[in-house]
């Protein structure tokens, strides 16, 4: 048996499982989003969406929140991993960084509320120091939402990056330093090629997760513009289910966008990794 046939066999149960469940669910969602037998064409719901200002606003704010949270998490996660791998001798520090991963997202959102609300603990602290406190939750800039995601996702980024740093050949860094390379140049040539594909894939996971998650923006977002999942939830249940097809159309679009993005980024990550292998 050739090795590739064997690999396919190892993957088969999973593929069947995914296609059976997710594929069937997606097919149904797509079916529900169509306007069969309506007077205005089978894609009427999609046309309605294209003209809907509320949807545009939701999409805009969703992309903004997902992008900013992802970028900040990646950046800070990289910083934490680099700093702590060089500061700490042992690996036990990981347990500390793991903590936020132990609690669900909605608890994370609740924590942010406890600390950052205008009547939260930081506001109390500011008030006792005679200072004011800015509005950081349920704000149109979605600061609270972004804060929650960053706090929750940094540990995930660390978790994904740590193996890379543990494996990285420390000698390479020493050599580049002895050759007089600056910090940035050193990073650019000794770390970046290995870190890059992992960052891209982790970023993809974070981005699609944030853009599709409901709990955090429901608690810490604003009424308008709301993020796509919150809007979808409202449309899904309100007015005797009459806006449900519209909600499904919106989620189908979100799905297609996410899948395209995944294909694009995974292809890139794959190329980078191959290049890394051929260099090594």
């Amino acid at each position, binding site marked *: 048996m050739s090795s*590739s046939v*064997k*690999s*396919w066999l*190892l*993957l088969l149960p*999973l593929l069947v*499982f*995914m*296609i059976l*469940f*997710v594929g*069937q*669910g*997606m097919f*149904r*969602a797509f079916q*529900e989003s169509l306007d069969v037998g309506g007077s205005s064409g089978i894609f009427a719901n999609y046309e309605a969406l294209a003209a809907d200002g509320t949807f545009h606003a939701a999409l805009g704010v969703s992309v903004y929140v997902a992008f900013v949270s992802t970028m900040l998490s990646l950046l800070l996660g990289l910083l934490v991993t680099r700093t*702590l791998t060089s*500061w*700490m*001798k042992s*690996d036990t520090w990981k347990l*500390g*960084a*793991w*903590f*936020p*991963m*132990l*609690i*669900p997202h*909605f*608890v994370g959102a*609740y*924590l942010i509320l*406890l600390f950052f609300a205008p*009547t*939260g603990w930081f*506001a109390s602290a500011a*008030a*006792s120091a005679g200072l004011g406190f800015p509005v950081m939750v349920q704000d149109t800039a979605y600061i609270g939402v972004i804060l929650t995601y960053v*706090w929750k996702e940094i*540990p995930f980024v660390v*978790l*994904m990056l740590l*193996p890379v740093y543990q494996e990285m050949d420390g000698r390479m860094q020493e050599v580049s330093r002895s050759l007089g390379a600056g910090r940035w140049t050193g990073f650019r040539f000794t770390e970046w090629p290995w870190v890059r594909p*992992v960052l891209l894939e982790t970023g993809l996971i974070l981005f*699609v*997760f944030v853009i*599709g998650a409901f709990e955090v923006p429901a608690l810490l977002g604003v009424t308008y513009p709301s993020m796509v*999942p919150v809007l*979808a939830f409202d449309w899904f249940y309100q007015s005797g289910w009459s806006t449900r097809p519209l909600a499904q159309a919106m989620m189908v679009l*979100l*799905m297609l966008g996410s*899948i395209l993005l*995944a294909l694009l980024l*995974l*292809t890139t990550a*794959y190329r980078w990794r191959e290049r890394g292998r051929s260099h090594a």
Partner: protein
Amino acid sequence: MRSILGWSMLLLVFVVPVLFLFLRSITFGWRYPDLFPSDWSMRAWHVIAGDPQILQALLTTMLVGITVVALNLLLGIPAAYALSHGRLKGVVWLETILFLPILVPVLAIAMGLHITMIRLGLADHISGVILIHLLPTLPYTIRVLRSGFDRIAPGWRRLGDTLGAPRITLFVTGLLPMMRPSLRSAAVLAFVISLSQYVLTAIIGGGQVTTLPLLYYPFFDSADQAVIAGFSVVFAALPAVFLLLWESLMAGFTYLLRRT
């Protein structure tokens, strides 16, 4: 010195907030602008402990979580290995398919999933809930394990071939111990994700399979902050219990390996 700085940073940003929740759950009427609580009350813990379904829910949650982790590893290890060392054509498409559950909003596919489960006769049953929890967990498990396998150079396999040991023994005694950190991460991650599933559990379990989030989520939709905080503490404690179980299991496994 630096490591002390690192530790205090970690504790302050990541650990203290969670401990703060515990404090919140045992206070009474602690509100703005009091910097520190003045009254204490165990009421929230009485409410939590007094729920007639709480014990059952804790057991169900642990059972579901542990089974989900086991299935994740069972399905995920071969798949991740194949992805990492298989050199497959169309690997990007494969990875995208395996990513699907995180690319697709649960709300959109929930009804389709429910119908499938009814047809399979698994709706309203714990096995259906376990099966459905594989969806949000597997993509992460595969991702984490895959990067673990990636670290193990292909040279290792050649070494195995030269030594002529049967593959499966080698896999268990040689490769898996090397994967220990990745396995731990994957297991805890899968457990936490399974633990926080509300929507999927509610839809597929129909309230017949009462896990902790099913009891807790409605309280989250109330103004009762002490109970919310208390439940959150229970939530954070469960993965810790799981981690302990996992570590003792691994220690036992290593011990057995050494003896044989």
